[in-house]
């Protein structure tokens, strides 16, 4: 048995050598938005893949063998950080046998380190639900954060793959120009959304709220990460009679029951807003994501 195991090992080693001939750097993104950003910045020099999809709750991912296998080959890991992936990413890192993506290495990038986090809790106590001591990690929904992260990610790409540093810089300039124009377009279109009052499922829309000037009047979850209860929902409904909301928002991966219940009782539309890239043709890249968000918000508010 020991002998056949050795033979097998030799065979796979051979495969390794042939596989490593393939050029380009491999990027392991925890969330689809960072994979999409890396694709914009890296072009043909990178192969980016996301560990999660738009239909998954990034707080609760199983450290599947396939993810370990992918992280094993990665040259760069790009994740949100701020505790968002703490339930599964550390296991992947420990199991992946890959020093390039360990904390402190050039191939390890937690993007939340580079933007200003909102909602930093005053009190850190598990009785308050699933709070993130460093602040709210759902930073991708403010396009200004994306711009900042694009710059940081380009720096990293240039460090990891210096041979193509010029290309990455050109890609960044190109992306930034288009992105800044897009931001202006979105801000122009969304002007009328300022002050729109919304109810959200989870407090994952803070950055969008902050950016567009929405007013969040309630959350379906009584506390972050704690599923909606009937008591909490009826209290919320009663509160909405005093301070009416114009719509109720949830992500594609969240259970529709609570928001549909509230939508019927309060007579307001229930919106499934994309919170990341993917999941539909319209949101296949970062531009499409914000286009779709703003279009849906405008439709619901009109």
């Amino acid at each position: 048995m020991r002998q056949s195991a050795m033979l097998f090992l030799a065979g796979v080693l051979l495969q390794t050598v042939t596989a490593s001939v393939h050029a380009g750097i491999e990027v392991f993104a925890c969330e689809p938005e960072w994979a999409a950003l890396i694709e914009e910045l890296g072009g043909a020099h990178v192969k980016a893949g996301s560990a999660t999809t738009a239909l998954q709750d990034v707080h609760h991912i199983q450290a599947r063998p396939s993810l370990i296998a992918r992280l094993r080959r990665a040259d760069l890991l790009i994740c949100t950080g701020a505790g968002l992936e703490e339930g599964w990413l550390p296991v992947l890192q420990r199991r992946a046998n890959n020093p390039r993506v360990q904390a402190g290495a050039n191939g390890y990038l937690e993007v939340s380190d580079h933007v200003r986090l909102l909602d930093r809790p005053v009190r850190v106590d598990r009785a308050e639900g699933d709070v993130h001591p460093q602040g709210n990690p759902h930073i991708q929904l403010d396009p200004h954060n994306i711009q900042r992260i694009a710059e940081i990610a380009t720096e990293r790409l240039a460090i990891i793959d210096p041979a193509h540093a010029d290309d990455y810089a050109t890609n960044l300039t190109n992306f930034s120009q288009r992105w800044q124009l897009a931001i202006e377009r979105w801000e122009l279109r969304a002007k009328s959304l300022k002050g729109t009052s919304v109810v959200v499922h989870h407090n994952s829309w803070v950055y969008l709220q902050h950016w567009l000037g929405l007013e969040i009047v309630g959350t379906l979850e009584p506390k972050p990460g704690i599923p909606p209860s009937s008591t909490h929902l009826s209290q919320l409904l009663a509160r909405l009679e005093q301070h009416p909301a114009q719509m109720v928002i949830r992500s594609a991966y969240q259970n529709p029951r609570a928001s549909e219940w509230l939508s019927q009782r309060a007579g307001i539309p229930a919106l499934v807003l994309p919170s990341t890239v993917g999941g539909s043709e319209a949101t296949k890249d970062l531009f499409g994501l914000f286009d779709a968000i703003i279009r849906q918000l405008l439709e619901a508010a009109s």
Partner: protein
Amino acid sequence: MRNVYANTLLVLIWLPFVAAADNTELESIRQQIEALRNEYESRIEALENRLEQAESQAREAGAEAERARQQTETAATGIAATEPAATGTLQQKINAFNPAITAVLQGSFNSYSEDPKDYAVSGFQLGGESGLPAQGLTLDETELMLSANVDQLFYGQTTIALHDDEEETEVEVEEAFIDALAMPAGTGLRFGRFYSDIGYLNRFHTHTWDFRDAPLAYRAFLGKQYSDTGMQLSWLAPTDLYLRLGGEALRGNRFPGGDASKTSGNSQSLFAKLGGDLGSSHSWQLGLSQLWVDARDRRGSGHSHGGGDSASEAFTGDSNLTVADFVWKWAPNGNPRHRNFKFQSEFFYRKEDGRNDFTEDGDTAVLDYDGSQKGLYAQAVYQFTQRWRIGTRYDWLSADNKLKLRNPGGLDPDEVMEETALNNDNHDPWRWSLMADWSPSEFSRLRLQYNRDRSRSLTDQQWMMQYIMSLGSHGAHEF
């Protein structure tokens, strides 16, 4: 724009001619018109966009200055946001390097229809922690876990468990290991005390198990769970398919080992794991492992026929264990939050060959022992709504032990042959379990479990209520 109109006009002129044409031709012209219309619409859209762009470019001149100002502001606030961490007292700065700390508090209420002190598994010598927890309210393992990167090269983790044994509290170092972080070419090195990677369930802490107690096979073959001191070398293949190969050299002085007698260790293992996804909703893992143990004076409990003067046994010889394991998980779209399903099963086969010393009242009989034993368990756990899970498990064991009395040593030969734990009483142990648990959050779990236990040729009805509470840092869970 003019071009589009011209084209449209052309089509309109064509139209009377094609009225007479056959259907396929008509269809192709319809498609052409449709294509023209689309083109026309996309041009309007493009124009709108150009208008919009022109508009925004006009604003740009003014916005440029504003944006530059904003950017410097964000940059400044970015620094400002990190500032609070830099201030603070010296004490806080020292504590910033504290490892991640988790305490797991566990306890249960147990009720058995048979006396748990007489617990035995027919045909198997039990060692390690394979006994049943006491009747009534008990404090189970209290685990304290610390982990952190030691420096740029090493990661360290330790789990200290406290458990009540009769009147006293025992302290046990369950694991205390170091992982090397900078190993080349997909290799991994771990050393210290750790849970062996043989089988599937073995490397999981008990508080992450789906049932309150260990599978019977884990009790019989691994003394509940096998952790030992030594080192592990593993290699992960750079393939899409998860393939992990590894081997361990261990001291071998914990069950199923006895006393450590060799410098190189009395226990070695090899393991292979294979895993992947099927679509976005299914994932699986297969494992095959082998454990070789050179056991010296391995103590195992004997039958105690209620008389209290229980015999003790010690095995010396080779103990070779093969484990095959399979896990399959399902979660709709890979999102396990609301609903998920998990099936796991392991098969054990062990060959033991050597001598067994049977001691009673100071007299020792020596038996030649050549055994082959099998065991398996299969379990399924379904989370049907957020917070709630139900599960069922089936256990089965079978021992075929050849025993020959070499030297009765002053004991009654018939009694020795009857009373040794290796005598299976012509009974293959089995057990059925049902479980339901409720987890108000990721950090707490309350569980109710029922076992119909035929570990020996008596039916034991076992009821258990258990709590598992985690304090402190968020532990990441393995697949």
